[in-house]
Protein backbone atom coordinates (compact mmCIF):
# COMPACT_ATOMS: atom_id res chain seq x y z
CA UNK A 1 0.00 0.00 0.00
CA UNK A 2 3.05 2.23 0.34
CA UNK A 3 2.81 3.37 -3.30
CA UNK A 4 -0.29 5.35 -2.32
CA UNK A 5 2.07 8.08 -1.12
CA UNK A 6 2.99 8.62 -4.73
CA UNK A 7 -0.59 9.76 -5.35
CA UNK A 8 -0.03 12.98 -3.41
CA UNK A 9 2.75 14.52 -5.55
CA UNK A 10 1.60 12.81 -8.76
CA UNK A 11 -2.03 14.00 -8.94
CA UNK A 12 -1.14 17.71 -9.37
CA UNK A 13 1.84 16.76 -11.57
CA UNK A 14 -0.32 14.64 -13.91
CA UNK A 15 -2.97 17.35 -13.98
CA UNK A 16 -0.50 19.73 -15.65
CA UNK A 17 -0.38 17.93 -19.06
CA UNK A 18 -4.10 17.13 -18.79
CA UNK A 19 -4.78 20.83 -18.20
CA UNK A 20 -2.60 21.77 -21.18
CA UNK A 21 -4.65 19.47 -23.38
CA UNK A 22 -8.16 20.23 -22.11
CA UNK A 23 -8.20 23.82 -20.66
CA UNK A 24 -11.88 23.50 -19.76
CA UNK A 25 -10.92 21.34 -16.75
CA UNK A 26 -9.84 24.48 -14.91
CA UNK A 27 -12.85 24.46 -12.65
CA UNK A 28 -12.00 21.00 -11.24
CA UNK A 29 -8.27 21.66 -10.73
CA UNK A 30 -8.68 22.92 -7.16
CA UNK A 31 -9.35 19.32 -6.04
CA UNK A 32 -5.67 18.37 -6.75
CA UNK A 33 -4.56 18.26 -3.06
CA UNK A 34 -7.60 16.09 -2.12
CA UNK A 35 -5.77 12.69 -1.93
CA UNK A 36 -3.48 14.16 0.77
CA UNK A 37 -6.34 14.43 3.29
CA UNK A 38 -7.39 10.74 3.59
CA UNK A 39 -3.75 9.56 3.37
CA UNK A 40 -2.80 11.88 6.26
CA UNK A 41 -5.23 9.85 8.40
CA UNK A 42 -4.62 6.38 6.91
CA UNK A 43 -0.86 6.86 7.09
CA UNK A 44 0.29 3.79 5.09
CA UNK A 45 3.92 2.80 5.83
CA UNK A 46 6.73 4.76 4.21
CA UNK A 47 7.45 4.11 0.53
CA UNK A 48 11.07 3.31 -0.33
CA UNK A 49 11.86 4.18 -3.97
CA UNK A 50 15.33 2.81 -4.89
CA UNK A 51 14.60 3.66 -8.52
CA UNK A 52 14.54 7.37 -7.88
CA UNK A 53 17.59 9.28 -6.76
CA UNK A 54 19.61 7.32 -4.16
CA UNK A 55 17.94 6.92 -0.80
CA UNK A 56 14.52 8.26 -1.84
CA UNK A 57 11.80 7.65 0.84
CA UNK A 58 8.33 9.15 0.98
CA UNK A 59 5.88 8.96 3.84
CA UNK A 60 4.73 10.40 7.16
CA UNK A 61 6.89 9.35 10.05
CA UNK A 62 5.75 11.53 12.97
CA UNK A 63 2.68 13.45 14.11
CA UNK A 64 4.09 16.83 13.15
CA UNK A 65 4.42 15.78 9.50
CA UNK A 66 0.80 14.56 9.55
CA UNK A 67 -0.37 17.90 10.94
CA UNK A 68 1.65 19.78 8.38
CA UNK A 69 0.35 17.64 5.50
CA UNK A 70 -3.26 18.13 6.59
CA UNK A 71 -2.88 21.87 7.09
CA UNK A 72 -1.05 22.40 3.74
CA UNK A 73 -3.59 20.33 1.83
CA UNK A 74 -6.45 22.22 3.43
CA UNK A 75 -4.92 25.61 2.69
CA UNK A 76 -4.13 24.66 -0.96
CA UNK A 77 -7.72 23.38 -1.29
CA UNK A 78 -9.28 26.57 0.02
CA UNK A 79 -6.95 28.85 -1.91
CA UNK A 80 -7.54 26.74 -5.01
CA UNK A 81 -11.27 27.22 -4.62
CA UNK A 82 -10.82 30.99 -4.44
CA UNK A 83 -8.35 30.92 -7.34
CA UNK A 84 -10.86 29.11 -9.55
CA UNK A 85 -13.30 32.02 -9.27
CA UNK A 86 -10.58 34.66 -9.17
CA UNK A 87 -8.96 33.53 -12.43
CA UNK A 88 -12.07 32.46 -14.31
CA UNK A 89 -11.64 35.23 -16.88
CA UNK A 90 -7.86 35.56 -16.68
CA UNK A 91 -6.27 35.31 -20.23
CA UNK A 92 -3.10 33.72 -18.83
CA UNK A 93 -5.07 31.33 -16.63
CA UNK A 94 -3.43 28.22 -18.10
CA UNK A 95 0.06 29.50 -17.28
CA UNK A 96 -1.16 30.38 -13.71
CA UNK A 97 -2.60 26.91 -13.11
CA UNK A 98 0.56 25.21 -14.46
CA UNK A 99 2.75 27.06 -11.96
CA UNK A 100 0.09 26.63 -9.25
CA UNK A 101 0.08 22.85 -9.67
CA UNK A 102 3.89 22.62 -9.88
CA UNK A 103 4.43 24.58 -6.67
CA UNK A 104 1.69 22.52 -4.97
CA UNK A 105 3.54 19.32 -6.03
CA UNK A 106 6.78 20.69 -4.65
CA UNK A 107 5.15 21.73 -1.39
CA UNK A 108 3.45 18.38 -0.79
CA UNK A 109 6.53 16.41 -1.87
CA UNK A 110 8.84 18.19 0.60
CA UNK A 111 6.47 17.45 3.47
CA UNK A 112 6.37 13.77 2.56
CA UNK A 113 10.12 13.57 1.99
CA UNK A 114 11.95 11.42 4.51
CA UNK A 115 15.37 11.91 2.93
CA UNK A 116 17.43 14.97 2.08
CA UNK A 117 17.34 14.52 -1.72
CA UNK A 118 13.56 14.26 -2.05
CA UNK A 119 13.17 17.22 0.31
CA UNK A 120 15.58 19.25 -1.84
CA UNK A 121 13.74 18.24 -5.06
CA UNK A 122 10.38 19.29 -3.61
CA UNK A 123 11.85 22.49 -2.16
CA UNK A 124 13.44 23.52 -5.49
CA UNK A 125 10.36 22.65 -7.56
CA UNK A 126 8.20 24.73 -5.20
CA UNK A 127 10.45 27.78 -5.01
CA UNK A 128 11.16 27.96 -8.76
CA UNK A 129 7.55 27.51 -9.83
CA UNK A 130 6.40 30.03 -7.21
CA UNK A 131 8.30 32.57 -9.33
CA UNK A 132 5.67 31.99 -12.04
CA UNK A 133 2.93 32.83 -9.53
CA UNK A 134 4.70 35.99 -8.34
CA UNK A 135 5.03 37.56 -11.80
CA UNK A 136 1.67 36.30 -13.05
CA UNK A 137 0.13 39.77 -13.20
CA UNK A 138 2.73 40.88 -15.71
CA UNK A 139 2.96 44.44 -14.28
CA UNK A 140 6.46 45.97 -14.09
CA UNK A 141 6.21 45.89 -10.29
CA UNK A 142 5.43 42.17 -10.26
CA UNK A 143 8.25 41.51 -12.79
CA UNK A 144 10.75 43.35 -10.59
CA UNK A 145 9.53 41.52 -7.48
CA UNK A 146 9.70 38.25 -9.39
CA UNK A 147 13.29 38.91 -10.48
CA UNK A 148 14.37 39.72 -6.91
CA UNK A 149 12.53 36.64 -5.64
CA UNK A 150 14.18 34.41 -8.24
CA UNK A 151 17.68 35.76 -7.62
CA UNK A 152 17.39 35.20 -3.91
CA UNK A 153 15.68 31.86 -4.42
CA UNK A 154 18.55 30.64 -6.59
CA UNK A 155 21.13 31.83 -4.03
CA UNK A 156 19.08 30.05 -1.38
CA UNK A 157 18.98 26.91 -3.50
CA UNK A 158 22.70 26.81 -3.96
CA UNK A 159 23.47 27.47 -0.30
CA UNK A 160 20.99 24.77 0.60
CA UNK A 161 22.73 22.46 -1.86
CA UNK A 162 26.04 23.14 -0.11
CA UNK A 163 24.42 22.60 3.27
CA UNK A 164 22.96 19.33 2.03
CA UNK A 165 26.35 18.18 0.75
CA UNK A 166 28.00 18.96 4.07
CA UNK A 167 25.18 17.30 5.95
CA UNK A 168 25.37 14.10 3.86
CA UNK A 169 29.12 14.08 4.29
CA UNK A 170 28.80 14.47 8.06
CA UNK A 171 26.20 11.70 8.18
CA UNK A 172 28.80 9.78 6.10
CA UNK A 173 26.59 9.00 3.16
CA UNK A 174 23.21 8.19 4.70
CA UNK A 175 20.41 10.33 3.25
CA UNK A 176 17.71 9.74 5.85
CA UNK A 177 16.61 12.78 7.83
CA UNK A 178 16.27 10.73 10.98
CA UNK A 179 19.95 9.83 10.67
CA UNK A 180 20.82 13.50 10.13
CA UNK A 181 19.02 14.55 13.24
CA UNK A 182 21.38 12.41 15.35
CA UNK A 183 24.70 13.46 13.82
CA UNK A 184 26.20 16.77 15.02
CA UNK A 185 26.66 19.50 12.40
CA UNK A 186 29.67 21.73 11.77
CA UNK A 187 29.47 25.53 11.75
CA UNK A 188 29.55 25.87 7.92
CA UNK A 189 26.69 23.41 7.62
CA UNK A 190 24.60 25.33 10.14
CA UNK A 191 25.30 28.63 8.43
CA UNK A 192 24.47 27.29 4.98
CA UNK A 193 21.23 25.65 6.12
CA UNK A 194 20.16 28.66 8.10
CA UNK A 195 20.71 31.10 5.22
CA UNK A 196 19.35 28.63 2.65
CA UNK A 197 16.11 28.03 4.55
CA UNK A 198 16.04 31.57 5.92
CA UNK A 199 15.85 33.00 2.38
CA UNK A 200 12.73 30.89 1.91
CA UNK A 201 11.25 31.50 5.41
CA UNK A 202 11.82 35.23 5.14
CA UNK A 203 12.67 36.25 8.75
CA UNK A 204 14.33 39.57 9.43
CA UNK A 205 17.71 39.82 7.64
CA UNK A 206 16.59 37.64 4.68
CA UNK A 207 13.05 38.93 4.29
CA UNK A 208 13.89 41.45 1.53
CA UNK A 209 11.91 39.70 -1.24
CA UNK A 210 8.76 38.94 0.83
CA UNK A 211 7.19 42.42 1.09
CA UNK A 212 7.82 42.92 -2.65
CA UNK A 213 6.60 39.48 -3.85
CA UNK A 214 3.42 38.88 -1.86
CA UNK A 215 1.53 42.04 -2.80
CA UNK A 216 2.53 41.58 -6.46
CA UNK A 217 1.17 38.03 -6.61
CA UNK A 218 -2.54 37.41 -7.24
CA UNK A 219 -4.65 36.96 -4.10
CA UNK A 220 -4.84 33.18 -4.02
CA UNK A 221 -1.12 32.89 -4.83
CA UNK A 222 -0.04 35.27 -2.07
CA UNK A 223 -2.32 33.39 0.34
CA UNK A 224 -0.57 30.15 -0.44
CA UNK A 225 2.84 31.83 -0.56
CA UNK A 226 2.42 33.33 2.87
CA UNK A 227 0.48 30.47 4.31
CA UNK A 228 2.20 27.30 3.18
CA UNK A 229 5.34 28.00 1.20
CA UNK A 230 7.39 30.13 3.58
CA UNK A 231 6.65 27.48 6.26
CA UNK A 232 8.75 25.08 4.17
CA UNK A 233 11.84 27.02 5.32
CA UNK A 234 11.01 26.39 8.94
CA UNK A 235 10.07 22.74 8.29
CA UNK A 236 13.41 22.33 6.59
CA UNK A 237 15.30 23.84 9.52
CA UNK A 238 13.30 21.67 11.93
CA UNK A 239 14.07 18.41 10.10
CA UNK A 240 17.72 19.07 9.14
CA UNK A 241 19.00 20.54 12.41
CA UNK A 242 20.70 18.13 14.81
CA UNK A 243 18.78 17.76 18.06
CA UNK A 244 20.45 16.42 21.14
CA UNK A 245 18.93 13.09 22.16
CA UNK A 246 18.46 14.36 25.67
CA UNK A 247 21.57 13.17 27.53
CA UNK A 248 24.60 14.81 25.80
CA UNK A 249 24.17 18.40 24.70
CA UNK A 250 25.80 19.18 21.35
CA UNK A 251 28.07 22.10 22.01
CA UNK A 252 27.90 23.90 18.69
CA UNK A 253 24.10 24.10 18.14
CA UNK A 254 23.61 25.16 21.76
CA UNK A 255 25.99 28.09 21.26
CA UNK A 256 24.10 29.14 18.10
CA UNK A 257 20.65 29.03 19.75
CA UNK A 258 20.81 32.41 21.55
CA UNK A 259 21.80 34.13 18.33
CA UNK A 260 18.83 32.59 16.57
CA UNK A 261 16.53 33.67 19.37
CA UNK A 262 17.80 37.22 19.06
CA UNK A 263 17.28 37.23 15.27
CA UNK A 264 13.75 35.83 15.77
CA UNK A 265 12.78 38.53 18.18
CA UNK A 266 14.35 41.30 16.13
CA UNK A 267 12.48 39.98 13.12
CA UNK A 268 9.23 39.93 15.09
CA UNK A 269 9.51 43.55 16.18
CA UNK A 270 11.09 44.83 12.95
CA UNK A 271 8.19 43.29 10.99
CA UNK A 272 5.64 45.10 13.08
CA UNK A 273 7.53 48.41 13.06
CA UNK A 274 7.91 48.61 9.27
CA UNK A 275 4.43 47.04 8.75
CA UNK A 276 2.81 49.91 10.61
CA UNK A 277 4.45 52.37 8.20
CA UNK A 278 2.96 50.69 5.10
CA UNK A 279 0.11 52.30 3.16
CA UNK A 280 -0.88 49.16 1.19
CA UNK A 281 -2.78 46.43 2.97
CA UNK A 282 -1.01 43.44 1.37
CA UNK A 283 2.42 44.85 2.20
CA UNK A 284 1.35 45.27 5.83
CA UNK A 285 0.17 41.66 5.89
CA UNK A 286 3.49 40.61 4.33
CA UNK A 287 5.39 42.35 7.11
CA UNK A 288 3.13 40.65 9.62
CA UNK A 289 4.24 37.34 8.08
CA UNK A 290 7.88 38.46 8.54
CA UNK A 291 7.23 39.07 12.22
CA UNK A 292 5.38 35.76 12.69
CA UNK A 293 8.28 33.93 11.01
CA UNK A 294 10.44 35.55 13.67
CA UNK A 295 8.44 33.66 16.29
CA UNK A 296 8.84 30.40 14.39
CA UNK A 297 12.57 31.02 14.30
CA UNK A 298 12.42 31.35 18.08
CA UNK A 299 10.96 27.86 18.10
CA UNK A 300 13.91 26.57 16.09
CA UNK A 301 16.24 28.35 18.52
CA UNK A 302 14.55 26.47 21.36
CA UNK A 303 15.07 23.21 19.44
CA UNK A 304 18.78 23.95 19.06
CA UNK A 305 19.17 24.94 22.73
CA UNK A 306 18.06 21.34 23.56
CA UNK A 307 16.73 22.67 26.84
CA UNK A 308 13.15 21.66 26.02
CA UNK A 309 11.53 18.29 25.23
CA UNK A 310 11.37 17.76 21.49
CA UNK A 311 7.84 16.31 21.36
CA UNK A 312 6.26 19.29 23.12
CA UNK A 313 8.17 21.66 20.90
CA UNK A 314 7.03 19.68 17.85
CA UNK A 315 3.42 19.94 18.84
CA UNK A 316 3.79 23.66 19.48
CA UNK A 317 5.40 24.11 16.07
CA UNK A 318 2.47 22.27 14.49
CA UNK A 319 -0.09 24.44 16.25
CA UNK A 320 1.71 27.65 15.43
CA UNK A 321 2.21 26.79 11.76
CA UNK A 322 -1.43 25.78 11.34
CA UNK A 323 -2.67 28.82 13.20
CA UNK A 324 -0.56 31.32 11.29
CA UNK A 325 -1.09 29.63 7.96
CA UNK A 326 -4.86 29.58 8.10
CA UNK A 327 -5.16 33.05 9.57
CA UNK A 328 -2.72 34.70 7.13
CA UNK A 329 -4.30 32.81 4.22
CA UNK A 330 -7.74 34.08 5.19
CA UNK A 331 -6.49 37.67 5.59
CA UNK A 332 -4.75 37.69 2.19
CA UNK A 333 -7.82 36.21 0.48
CA UNK A 334 -9.94 38.76 2.26
CA UNK A 335 -7.68 41.58 1.13
CA UNK A 336 -7.86 40.24 -2.41
CA UNK A 337 -11.66 40.15 -2.22
CA UNK A 338 -11.81 43.61 -0.71
CA UNK A 339 -10.09 44.99 -3.81
CA UNK A 340 -12.94 43.65 -6.01
CA UNK A 341 -16.10 43.72 -3.97
CA UNK A 342 -17.46 45.89 -1.23
CA UNK A 343 -17.68 43.56 1.80
CA UNK A 344 -20.87 43.34 3.75
CA UNK A 345 -20.95 43.50 7.52
CA UNK A 346 -21.06 39.70 7.92
CA UNK A 347 -17.90 39.50 5.82
CA UNK A 348 -16.20 41.98 8.12
CA UNK A 349 -17.06 39.85 11.12
CA UNK A 350 -15.61 36.82 9.37
CA UNK A 351 -12.54 38.90 8.40
CA UNK A 352 -12.08 39.99 12.04
CA UNK A 353 -11.92 36.37 13.27
CA UNK A 354 -8.48 35.43 11.77
CA UNK A 355 -7.15 38.91 12.62
CA UNK A 356 -8.10 38.49 16.17
CA UNK A 357 -6.76 34.93 16.24
CA UNK A 358 -3.42 36.27 15.01
CA UNK A 359 -3.29 38.69 17.90
CA UNK A 360 -3.87 35.78 20.26
CA UNK A 361 -7.44 36.42 21.37
CA UNK A 362 -8.65 33.77 23.88
CA UNK A 363 -10.71 30.83 22.60
CA UNK A 364 -8.90 31.02 19.22
CA UNK A 365 -6.03 28.96 17.77
CA UNK A 366 -3.90 32.05 18.32
CA UNK A 367 -4.39 31.89 22.04
CA UNK A 368 -3.25 28.29 22.16
CA UNK A 369 -0.17 28.97 20.07
CA UNK A 370 0.83 32.10 21.97
CA UNK A 371 0.40 30.68 25.42
CA UNK A 372 2.15 27.41 24.60
CA UNK A 373 4.99 29.43 23.10
CA UNK A 374 5.28 31.51 26.26
CA UNK A 375 5.24 28.38 28.47
CA UNK A 376 7.97 26.72 26.38
CA UNK A 377 10.12 29.84 26.45
CA UNK A 378 9.42 30.08 30.15
CA UNK A 379 10.84 26.71 31.04
CA UNK A 380 13.66 26.80 28.47
CA UNK A 381 17.09 28.37 28.94
CA UNK A 382 15.80 31.77 27.79
CA UNK A 383 13.18 32.27 30.47
CA UNK A 384 14.38 35.87 30.92
CA UNK A 385 13.06 36.83 27.48
CA UNK A 386 9.50 35.75 28.14
CA UNK A 387 8.28 39.28 28.77
CA UNK A 388 9.09 40.25 25.20
CA UNK A 389 6.50 37.78 23.89
CA UNK A 390 3.77 39.56 25.68
CA UNK A 391 4.86 42.85 24.15
CA UNK A 392 5.05 40.93 20.89
CA UNK A 393 1.40 39.90 20.93
CA UNK A 394 0.48 43.52 21.69
CA UNK A 395 2.48 44.66 18.70
CA UNK A 396 0.86 42.03 16.52
CA UNK A 397 -2.54 43.28 17.53
CA UNK A 398 -1.54 46.83 16.48
CA UNK A 399 -0.26 45.64 13.09
CA UNK A 400 -3.29 43.44 12.44
CA UNK A 401 -5.71 46.21 13.22
CA UNK A 402 -3.80 48.61 10.95
CA UNK A 403 -3.98 45.97 8.22
CA UNK A 404 -7.72 45.59 8.70
CA UNK A 405 -8.10 49.35 8.52
CA UNK A 406 -6.08 49.47 5.31
CA UNK A 407 -8.21 46.70 3.79
CA UNK A 408 -11.33 48.55 4.78
CA UNK A 409 -9.95 51.72 3.21
CA UNK A 410 -9.07 49.98 -0.04
CA UNK A 411 -12.64 48.76 -0.63
CA UNK A 412 -14.39 50.11 -3.74
CA UNK A 413 -17.48 52.30 -3.11
CA UNK A 414 -21.10 51.27 -3.79
CA UNK A 415 -23.41 48.72 -2.18
CA UNK A 416 -21.93 45.48 -0.80
CA UNK A 417 -21.93 43.04 -3.74
CA UNK A 418 -22.66 39.38 -3.41
CA UNK A 419 -19.58 37.17 -3.68
CA UNK A 420 -19.34 34.16 -5.96
CA UNK A 421 -20.07 30.88 -4.13
CA UNK A 422 -16.59 29.18 -4.36
CA UNK A 423 -14.97 32.33 -3.05
CA UNK A 424 -17.43 32.46 -0.17
CA UNK A 425 -16.90 28.80 0.65
CA UNK A 426 -13.09 28.83 0.57
CA UNK A 427 -12.65 32.11 2.40
CA UNK A 428 -15.39 31.40 4.90
CA UNK A 429 -13.98 28.02 5.89
CA UNK A 430 -10.55 29.56 6.46
CA UNK A 431 -11.95 32.36 8.61
CA UNK A 432 -14.08 30.04 10.67
CA UNK A 433 -11.13 27.72 11.22
CA UNK A 434 -9.61 30.14 13.75
CA UNK A 435 -12.33 29.69 16.42
CA UNK A 436 -13.72 26.29 15.29
CA UNK A 437 -10.51 24.32 14.82
CA UNK A 438 -9.67 23.86 18.52
CA UNK A 439 -12.93 22.07 19.02
CA UNK A 440 -12.33 19.69 16.12
CA UNK A 441 -8.80 18.83 17.00
CA UNK A 442 -8.40 16.89 20.30
CA UNK A 443 -4.81 17.96 21.15
CA UNK A 444 -5.71 21.58 20.37
CA UNK A 445 -8.77 21.32 22.55
CA UNK A 446 -6.75 20.10 25.52
CA UNK A 447 -4.27 22.96 25.08
CA UNK A 448 -7.12 25.47 24.77
CA UNK A 449 -8.68 24.31 27.98
CA UNK A 450 -5.32 24.86 29.77
CA UNK A 451 -5.31 28.48 28.59
CA UNK A 452 -8.73 29.06 30.06
CA UNK A 453 -7.29 28.96 33.58
CA UNK A 454 -7.43 32.37 35.24
CA UNK A 455 -3.73 32.96 35.19
CA UNK A 456 -3.68 31.90 31.53
CA UNK A 457 -6.53 34.21 30.53
CA UNK A 458 -4.91 37.16 32.22
CA UNK A 459 -1.63 36.35 30.56
CA UNK A 460 -3.43 36.57 27.20
CA UNK A 461 -5.64 39.56 27.90
CA UNK A 462 -3.36 42.26 29.36
CA UNK A 463 -1.33 42.79 26.19
CA UNK A 464 -4.58 42.95 24.15
CA UNK A 465 -6.08 45.48 26.45
CA UNK A 466 -2.94 47.58 26.33
CA UNK A 467 -3.05 47.31 22.54
CA UNK A 468 -6.69 48.34 22.44
CA UNK A 469 -5.86 51.41 24.52
CA UNK A 470 -3.11 52.42 22.10
CA UNK A 471 -5.45 51.93 19.10
CA UNK A 472 -8.07 54.06 20.78
CA UNK A 473 -5.53 56.84 21.34
CA UNK A 474 -4.39 56.74 17.74
CA UNK A 475 -7.95 56.81 16.39
CA UNK A 476 -8.73 59.69 18.65
CA UNK A 477 -5.84 61.98 17.88
CA UNK A 478 -5.07 60.73 14.30
CA UNK A 479 -1.41 61.93 14.36
CA UNK A 480 0.03 62.67 10.84
CA UNK A 481 3.63 61.50 11.06
CA UNK A 482 4.19 61.26 7.28
CA UNK A 483 6.60 58.35 7.53
CA UNK A 484 5.38 56.82 4.28
CA UNK A 485 8.50 57.91 2.46
CA UNK A 486 10.59 55.70 4.75
CA UNK A 487 8.51 52.67 3.80
CA UNK A 488 8.98 53.06 0.10
CA UNK A 489 12.79 52.51 0.23
CA UNK A 490 13.28 48.83 -0.68
CA UNK A 491 17.04 47.99 -0.66
CA UNK A 492 16.53 44.57 -2.21
CA UNK A 493 14.81 45.81 -5.33
CA UNK A 494 17.43 48.51 -5.95
CA UNK A 495 20.25 45.98 -5.76
CA UNK A 496 18.47 43.50 -8.03
CA UNK A 497 17.81 46.20 -10.64
CA UNK A 498 21.43 47.30 -10.57
CA UNK A 499 22.56 43.63 -11.09
CA UNK A 500 20.21 43.23 -14.06
CA UNK A 501 21.40 46.43 -15.70
CA UNK A 502 25.08 45.41 -15.11
CA UNK A 503 24.44 42.02 -16.67
CA UNK A 504 22.61 43.17 -19.75
CA UNK A 505 24.48 46.30 -20.63
CA UNK A 506 27.97 44.81 -19.95
CA UNK A 507 28.37 42.75 -23.07
CA UNK A 508 28.55 45.59 -25.57
CA UNK A 509 29.27 43.07 -28.30
CA UNK A 510 30.74 44.62 -31.36
CA UNK A 511 27.78 45.24 -33.59
CA UNK A 512 28.52 43.77 -37.00
CA UNK A 513 27.10 46.98 -38.50
CA UNK A 514 29.88 49.02 -36.89
CA UNK A 515 32.70 49.53 -39.44
CA UNK A 516 35.66 47.32 -38.58
CA UNK A 517 38.41 49.71 -37.39
CA UNK A 518 40.97 49.78 -40.17
CA UNK A 519 43.59 47.28 -39.11
CA UNK A 520 46.96 48.66 -40.09
CA UNK A 521 48.51 45.90 -42.06
CA UNK A 522 51.07 44.77 -39.47
CA UNK A 523 52.64 42.33 -41.78
CA UNK A 524 53.25 44.83 -44.65
CA UNK A 525 56.78 45.25 -43.35
CA UNK A 526 57.33 41.52 -43.22
CA UNK A 527 56.02 41.12 -46.77
CA UNK A 528 58.71 43.41 -48.20
CA UNK A 529 61.37 41.62 -46.20
CA UNK A 530 60.14 38.35 -47.64
CA UNK A 531 60.16 39.74 -51.21
CA UNK A 532 63.74 40.89 -50.78
CA UNK A 533 64.70 37.47 -49.41
CA UNK A 534 63.05 35.76 -52.39
CA UNK A 535 64.83 38.07 -54.85
CA UNK A 536 68.09 37.18 -53.17
CA UNK A 537 67.54 33.47 -53.84
CA UNK A 538 66.59 33.97 -57.49
CA UNK A 539 69.98 33.09 -59.02
CA UNK A 540 69.97 29.48 -57.83
CA UNK A 541 73.38 28.40 -59.08
CA UNK A 542 75.33 31.26 -57.54
CA UNK A 543 73.60 31.02 -54.20
CA UNK A 544 74.02 27.26 -54.01
CA UNK A 545 77.69 27.62 -54.94
CA UNK A 546 78.11 30.15 -52.14
CA UNK A 547 76.34 27.83 -49.72
CA UNK A 548 78.59 24.97 -50.86
CA UNK A 549 81.70 27.08 -50.36
CA UNK A 550 80.55 28.26 -46.94
CA UNK A 551 79.60 24.67 -46.03
CA UNK A 552 83.07 23.50 -46.98
CA UNK A 553 84.65 26.29 -45.00
CA UNK A 554 82.59 25.75 -41.85
CA UNK A 555 82.74 21.97 -41.90
CA UNK A 556 86.39 21.58 -42.74
CA UNK A 557 87.71 24.17 -40.32
Amino acid sequence: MAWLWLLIPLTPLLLVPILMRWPKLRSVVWLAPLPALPLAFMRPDTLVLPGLWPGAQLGIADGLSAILLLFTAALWLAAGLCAVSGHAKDPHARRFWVFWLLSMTGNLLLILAQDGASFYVGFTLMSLSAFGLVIHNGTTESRRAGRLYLQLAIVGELLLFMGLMLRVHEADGSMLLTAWQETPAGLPTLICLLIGFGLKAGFWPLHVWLPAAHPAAPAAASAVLSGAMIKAGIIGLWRFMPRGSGEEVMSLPASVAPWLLAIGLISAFYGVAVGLLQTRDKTALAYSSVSQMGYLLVLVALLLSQSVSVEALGLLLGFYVVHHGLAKGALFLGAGMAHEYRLSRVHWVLMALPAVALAGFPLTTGAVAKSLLKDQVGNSAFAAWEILFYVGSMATLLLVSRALWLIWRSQPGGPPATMPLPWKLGWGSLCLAAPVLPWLWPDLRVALLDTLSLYGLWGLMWPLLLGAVVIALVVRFNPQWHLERLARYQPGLVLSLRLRRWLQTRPVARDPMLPERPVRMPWAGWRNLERRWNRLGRDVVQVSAWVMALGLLWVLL
Partner: protein
Amino acid sequence: MTQVLFYLILGVCLWALGLYGLLRLKESIRRIISVNIMGSGVFMVMVALAARSEDPDPVMHALVVTGLVVAISATAFALRLSVADVQEDDQ
Protein backbone atom coordinates in the same frame (compact mmCIF):
# COMPACT_ATOMS: atom_id res chain seq x y z
CA MET B 1 108.24 18.79 -52.40
CA THR B 2 108.07 15.97 -54.98
CA GLN B 3 106.60 16.32 -58.47
CA VAL B 4 103.47 14.41 -57.38
CA LEU B 5 102.84 16.81 -54.51
CA PHE B 6 103.38 19.82 -56.81
CA TYR B 7 100.77 18.57 -59.24
CA LEU B 8 98.43 17.59 -56.43
CA ILE B 9 98.57 21.17 -55.15
CA LEU B 10 98.14 22.50 -58.69
CA GLY B 11 95.09 20.27 -59.16
CA VAL B 12 93.58 21.52 -55.89
CA CYS B 13 94.24 25.12 -56.96
CA LEU B 14 92.52 24.55 -60.30
CA TRP B 15 89.55 22.97 -58.47
CA ALA B 16 89.33 25.95 -56.14
CA LEU B 17 89.61 28.31 -59.11
CA GLY B 18 86.70 26.51 -60.77
CA LEU B 19 84.65 26.92 -57.60
CA TYR B 20 85.64 30.60 -57.47
CA GLY B 21 84.41 30.94 -61.04
CA LEU B 22 81.04 29.41 -60.06
CA LEU B 23 80.79 31.88 -57.16
CA ARG B 24 81.19 34.90 -59.40
CA LEU B 25 80.22 34.21 -62.99
CA LYS B 26 76.72 35.09 -64.09
CA GLU B 27 76.61 34.04 -67.74
CA SER B 28 75.82 30.33 -68.35
CA ILE B 29 78.51 29.55 -70.95
CA ARG B 30 81.21 30.97 -68.69
CA ARG B 31 79.82 28.89 -65.82
CA ILE B 32 80.13 25.76 -67.96
CA ILE B 33 83.75 26.69 -68.66
CA SER B 34 84.48 27.14 -64.96
CA VAL B 35 82.88 23.73 -64.25
CA ASN B 36 85.24 22.24 -66.85
CA ILE B 37 88.19 23.89 -65.15
CA MET B 38 87.03 22.39 -61.84
CA GLY B 39 86.81 18.97 -63.58
CA SER B 40 90.31 19.28 -64.97
CA GLY B 41 91.48 20.18 -61.45
CA VAL B 42 90.11 16.92 -60.07
CA PHE B 43 91.54 14.96 -62.98
CA MET B 44 94.97 16.50 -62.30
CA VAL B 45 94.71 15.35 -58.67
CA MET B 46 93.83 11.82 -59.84
CA VAL B 47 96.58 11.66 -62.42
CA ALA B 48 99.08 12.97 -59.88
CA LEU B 49 97.97 10.20 -57.50
CA ALA B 50 98.41 7.70 -60.34
CA ALA B 51 101.98 8.91 -60.85
CA ARG B 52 103.00 7.97 -57.27
CA SER B 53 104.21 4.49 -58.21
CA GLU B 54 106.96 4.28 -60.85
CA ASP B 55 104.71 2.60 -63.46
CA PRO B 56 101.60 4.79 -63.23
CA ASP B 57 98.40 3.29 -61.72
CA PRO B 58 96.24 2.11 -64.69
CA VAL B 59 92.99 2.17 -62.66
CA MET B 60 93.33 5.91 -62.09
CA HIS B 61 93.99 6.49 -65.75
CA ALA B 62 90.92 4.46 -66.72
CA LEU B 63 88.85 6.47 -64.23
CA VAL B 64 90.13 9.75 -65.66
CA VAL B 65 89.29 8.65 -69.20
CA THR B 66 85.80 7.76 -68.06
CA GLY B 67 85.61 11.09 -66.24
CA LEU B 68 86.65 12.92 -69.39
CA VAL B 69 83.96 11.27 -71.50
CA VAL B 70 81.33 12.03 -68.86
CA ALA B 71 82.55 15.63 -68.74
CA ILE B 72 82.38 16.11 -72.48
CA SER B 73 78.87 14.67 -72.75
CA ALA B 74 77.61 16.76 -69.84
CA THR B 75 79.23 19.88 -71.31
CA ALA B 76 77.67 19.23 -74.69
CA PHE B 77 74.24 18.88 -73.14
CA ALA B 78 74.74 21.94 -70.92
CA LEU B 79 75.90 24.11 -73.83
CA ARG B 80 73.00 23.09 -76.04
CA LEU B 81 70.62 23.71 -73.09
CA SER B 82 72.04 27.18 -72.42
CA VAL B 83 71.80 28.05 -76.11
CA ALA B 84 68.19 26.78 -76.33
CA ASP B 85 67.35 28.73 -73.18
CA VAL B 86 68.57 32.10 -74.41
CA GLN B 87 67.72 31.65 -78.08
CA GLU B 88 65.06 34.17 -79.15
CA ASP B 89 62.01 32.32 -80.33
CA ASP B 90 62.71 32.97 -83.99
CA GLN B 91 61.15 29.70 -85.05
